[in-house]
């Protein structure tokens, strides 16, 4: 009953890879921007905030199209990256990861920002009196205290990346083995006669992965919480 063709397994593996890579690469940027928004006041802050949140409110197809005209092979940024660094996004899985990372970014930044804002600044003052300079203070106090939010942000980003469809398919199309993720594969299967049972199998896999990610992040968050409050 439950059977996946090699092509469908490829879509599953590709989805996992894209979701993980986009989450991990987005993380340092997410932490930096969340901290900046939580802690600093500067000219253009509300603009930065708005730009970060844009993928959340724009139709995904629009985001995908913007990526296409920015990072496409013949687009200015895309051509520059391809010529100078050999990084090609268009119609590659890396492009799917870029699209997923950008779509997931606002969720990640929000979660991390909230937890950075909740940190008791007086603990950071205490660390400074004990000789911690800004960098050490950030690494040894701010970052560990923001950990629950960082975990939540990664979880949200991973889930968002796994479910991303519109921006990805617009930007890098739906190429089996290269850019066809679970979502795109399910969509394709529902468009052909007799594809229903395979689509259902993929749906079950998607539910399983999402549940596993949710349980794992709960577990990590609870561990981080109990480490912080006793034991």
């Amino acid at each position, binding site marked *: 009953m439950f059977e996946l063709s090699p092509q469908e397994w490829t879509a599953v593996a590709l989805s996992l890879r894209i979701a993980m890579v986009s989450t991990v690469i987005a993380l340092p940027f997410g932490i930096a921007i969340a901290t900046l928004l939580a802690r600093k006041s500067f000219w253009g802050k509300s603009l930065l905030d708005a730009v970060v949140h844009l993928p959340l409110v724009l139709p995904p197809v629009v985001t995908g199209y913007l990526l296409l005209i920015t990072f496409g092979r013949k687009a200015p940024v895309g051509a520059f990256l391809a010529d100078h660094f050999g990084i090609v996004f268009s119609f590659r899985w890396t492009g799917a990861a870029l699209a997923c990372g950008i779509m997931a970014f606002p969720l990640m930044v929000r979660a991390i920002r909230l937890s950075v804002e909740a940190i008791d600044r007086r603990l950071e003052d205490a*660390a*400074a009196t*004990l*000789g911690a300079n800004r960098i050490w203070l950030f690494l040894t106090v701010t970052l560990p205290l923001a*950990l629950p939010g960082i975990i939540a942000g990664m979880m949200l980003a991973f889930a968002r990346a796994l479910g991303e469809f519109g921006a990805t398919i617009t930007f890098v199309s739906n190429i089996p083995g290269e850019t066809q993720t679970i979502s795109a594969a399910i969509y394709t299967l529902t468009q052909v006669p007799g594809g229903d049972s395979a689509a259902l199998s993929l749906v079950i896999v998607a539910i399983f992965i999402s549940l596993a990610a949710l349980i794992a992040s709960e577990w990590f968050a609870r561990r981080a919480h109990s*480490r912080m*409050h006793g034991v």
Partner: protein
Amino acid sequence: MLAVNVEKMLGDFAVTATFASETGATALFGPSGSGKTTVVNMIAGLLKPDRGRIALDDEVVFDDEARIDAPVWRRRIGTVFQEGRLFPHLSVRHNLDYGRWMGGHAADPAAFSHAVELLDIGHLLDRRPGRLSGGERQRVAVGRALLMRPRLLLLDEPLASLDEARKADILPYLERLRDEAKVPMIYVSHDAGEVKRIATRVVRIEGGKVAATGGVELLRA
């Protein structure tokens, strides 16, 4: 030796403080709201004075005319806050070691066990701050400040958050600290009883100004 001569406007409340302290424990004594914590924060470097000069031993850590304002983390002033401010994500042992790590010093087991013994916190080392009582937390906070090898210890109402019985428990530790640690102390308190037991000199602060400077006899007035 600490020499302070600073001014700071907080809204329309002016805080001006001029005093010097030698070895032993100097109390900044005065009612709540008199500006004691403001003075302490300026010494620690957490608050920037509008004008003035702060010198510690041979080093000027703040001087507005010479444009000197050493950052908090370079001042090496061990500070104990009213609420302890222990790091909740670190064990007591790691809290105690934090200042040594940040200062880049090698482990000094003798100094560590001396401080642990002085404050009687050996049985708490593997706990996290969330599992400590108020009195235990303050003793660990004192140990943490002591083990960073400070040039000066700044204790800002360290007992104010504790009940009378706990205060009585901790005062002997602070007396031993004063007599054995050989680090000069600034002890901030509004409680004459505490100050009488700890201080060797008293700076009385009222309404944001130094009202009197002298020995513990000031407390009778």
